[in-house]
C-alpha cells in the first residue's frame, strides 16, 4: 500500500527565486497560507497559524529537518485526527508525523520542483476525516465562486 506522495511541478522562475519562496518564512506563508512566527532553522520547530479560510483554528507546527540552499528543504509535521473545528485538538505531540521534502533542480525553463511526503504507513486506521473532505469540496467550490466573481468584476 502507498506510503508516499510525490509531485513534480515545472516553475518558470529561477532556482534562486523558488528557493526564496520556500525558505523565507514570510514568502512561504504567502502561498502556503500560514502566518509563521519566525524564520525556518534546521533542527528547530516552526510555529504559526493557518490562514486558509475555514481552517484558521488550525495550528502550524513543523520540525525543520534540512535546508540546503537551492537544493533541499525538508520538515516533518503532524497529521491531526481531525481538522474539524469542533473536534480539532491543538496538541499534536501524539499525532503521527510525515516527512515533507522539497527538492529543486535547474531546468532550461526555470526550476523543477519535486515535492514528496512520506510516512503515511504510520498513520492509524481510525483516522476519520470525511468531514474535512466534505468541507474541502465545499471550499473548492467557494474558490471557484470567488474566481468567477473577480473575473466578472475587475
Amino acid at each position, binding site marked *: 500500500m502507498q506510503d508516499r506522495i510525490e509531485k513534480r511541478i515545472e*516553475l518558470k*522562475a529561477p532556482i534562486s527565486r523558488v528557493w526564496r519562496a520556500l525558505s523565507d518564512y514570510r514568502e512561504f506563508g504567502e502561498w502556503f497560507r500560514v502566518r509563521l512566527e519566525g524564520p525556518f532553522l534546521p533542527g528547530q520547530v516552526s510555529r504559526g497559524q493557518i490562514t486558509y479560510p475555514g481552517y484558521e483554528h488550525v495550528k502550524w507546527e513543523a520540525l525543520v529537518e534540512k535546508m540546503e540552499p537551492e537544493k533541499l528543504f525538508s520538515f516533518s509535521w503532524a497529521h491531526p485526527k481531525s481538522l474539524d473545528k469542533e473536534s480539532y485538538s491543538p496538541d499534536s505531540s501524539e499525532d503521527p508525523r510525515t516527512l515533507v521534502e522539497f527538492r529543486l533542480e535547474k531546468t532550461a525553463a526555470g526550476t523543477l520542483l519535486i515535492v514528496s511526503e512520506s510516512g503515511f504507513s504510520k498513520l492509524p486506521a481510525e*483516522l*476519520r476525516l470525511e468531514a474535512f473532505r466534505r468541507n474541502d469540496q465545499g471550499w473548492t467550490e467557494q474558490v471557484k465562486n470567488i474566481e468567477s466573481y473577480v473575473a466578472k468584476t475587475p
Partner: protein
Amino acid sequence: MFAALGDETRLALVGRLAGGETYSISQLRSGSRLTRQAITKHLRVLEKVGLVRSVHRGRESLFQLDPEPIVEMREYLDLVSEQWDEALNRLKAFVEK
C-alpha cells in the same frame, strides 16, 4: 494497518473475508494448513486495526471484514495529494508573477 496487511496469511484471510459475509474460524481454515490458534491470532491482529469485526453467535465467533479503514486511508491520501496540488499551484502563481 499497513503492517497488519503485510503478511501473506493475513492478506489471504482478508481475501476470503472479502466475500462480505460472516465466516467462522472453521470456514476460514478450510483448505489451509494453519491451526485454529494460528488463524485466531491473525484474525485478532486484523481486528485490532479495525479491518475485521467479530460477532458472537452462541459459543462461536464469526468474523466479518470491515472495509471502511482501507477506503478511508486511500481517501486520506487522495485528499493530501489534492491539497499539495492546490498549494503548488499557489506557489507557481507566486514565483511566476
